[in-house]
């Protein structure tokens, strides 16, 4: 019980850092994913290729290598300097963005072509069609898969502890050494992650029910 009492406030501080990074990174990641999906589907070959190379590069390399490349690799060029939190956010965002883009692309392609034809026949341009007709329908279908990816990204943030970010995992490591009670500290850390992820999936299923396709 002492362990819990001593470590808990630190773990909560760590959780704040984790959530802060997660929320910013997931929003950025979603925007990246949307952009890359649209590039992938654009009627211009070169844009399709750029998008595909980006997705393949991210999918084909480990998260931790991406993190080291962005934090140590880019900083070593000495063109600009990025602190570890920024590098962490950027890495999670880019990584999630690549996976989101594939989810969004599949979602867009799953919408019947007749929807686009109806919208275009009314005089809506391609952008209006995407925005008002295709994407709103596609997002409803994508929501479960998007939630899944968001959960994976949340768990990926624990790897940011290796570049010294004081997230939940890092705080756990510090408290495990400080209290000599690794068993209980990591158990609590695990429970905290679990609760957050559980709440996240509850939120997602609430949103899903609210926007269920009629």
């Amino acid at each position, binding site marked *: 019980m002492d362990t819990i009492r001593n470590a808990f406030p630190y773990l909560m501080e760590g959780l704040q850092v984790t959530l802060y990074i997660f929320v910013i990174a997931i929003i950025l990641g979603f925007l990246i994913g949307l952009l890359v999906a649209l590039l992938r589907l654009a009627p211009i070959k070169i844009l399709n290729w750029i998008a595909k190379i980006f997705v393949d590069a991210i999918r084909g390399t480990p998260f931790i290598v991406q993190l080291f490349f962005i934090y140590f690799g880019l900083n070593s060029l000495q063109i600009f300097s990025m602190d570890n939190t920024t590098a962490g956010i950027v890495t999670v965002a880019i990584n999630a963005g690549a996976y989101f883009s594939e989810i969004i692309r599949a979602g867009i392609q799953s919408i019947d072509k*007749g929807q686009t*034809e109806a919208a*275009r*026949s*009314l*005089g*809506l341009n391609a952008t209006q069609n995407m925005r008002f007709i295709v994407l709103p*329908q596609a997002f409803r279908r994508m929501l479960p898969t998007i939630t899944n990816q968001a959960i994976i990204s949340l768990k990926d943030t624990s790897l940011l502890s290796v570049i010294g970010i004081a997230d939940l995992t890092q705080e756990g490591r510090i408290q495990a050494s400080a209290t000599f009670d690794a068993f209980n500290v990591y158990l609590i850390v695990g429970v905290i992650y679990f609760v957050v992820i559980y709440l996240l999936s509850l939120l997602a299923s609430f949103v899903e029910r609210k926007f269920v396709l009629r």
Partner: protein
Amino acid sequence: MTMIRVENLKKSFGKLEVLKDISTVIEEKEVVCVIGPSGSGKSTFLRCLNRLEDITGGHVYIEGVDITEPKNDINKIRQDVGMVFQQFNLFPHKSVLENVTLAPMKLKKNDKKAITEKAYELLDKVGLREKANVYPGQLSGGQKQRVAIARALAMDPKIMLFDEPTSALDPEMVGDVLDVMKQLAVEGMTMVVVTHEMGFAREVGDRVMFIDGGYIVEENVPSELFGNPQHERTKSFLSKVL
């Protein structure tokens, strides 16, 4: 006044030449029914009239504007050309009312209230005012198609294109949709209707166009085309469908 002028229209899908050489003129208030065997290119012809299909060769003029000319704003032209599809293509995430108001809300400068009032009038016209707040998933096929007609009319089009509007309907639903179309014809809408409903073509059409093999084989007033077809292919097609 000429609403649609088609000159030597050609359309290929890859190596497959679907429309080989189509020329015709459709006047204001004219109702033209397009008939022909499946795969003859009649739907493709219709879809070229609002450039839903990219046109391979020739010209299509809508109210004098060449839609094959890339610098002409196709989105603007399409606002004048309503289209009704075989599969309805209603927007499932929008209510019936929103289906009808969506395009005018985004594209017309009228105020929202006027657009909504107009939408209710149109729903009245197709007999579905009481369904305004229902979603398309809860409608029957015939109801969906009537909403689709109202949706197209909401843009105040000068021309209406119908692509086999009753082919996906249960037989007992066909009448309601045809009645709405008849009403439109009576009111003087310029209409091009791809259809298998020979009764409708005969009764409502000012002209019937028989398309086969990528050409207009024969076109004439319904009584002549049905009563006295000139071409062997027309005769053999009519003998199968009548």
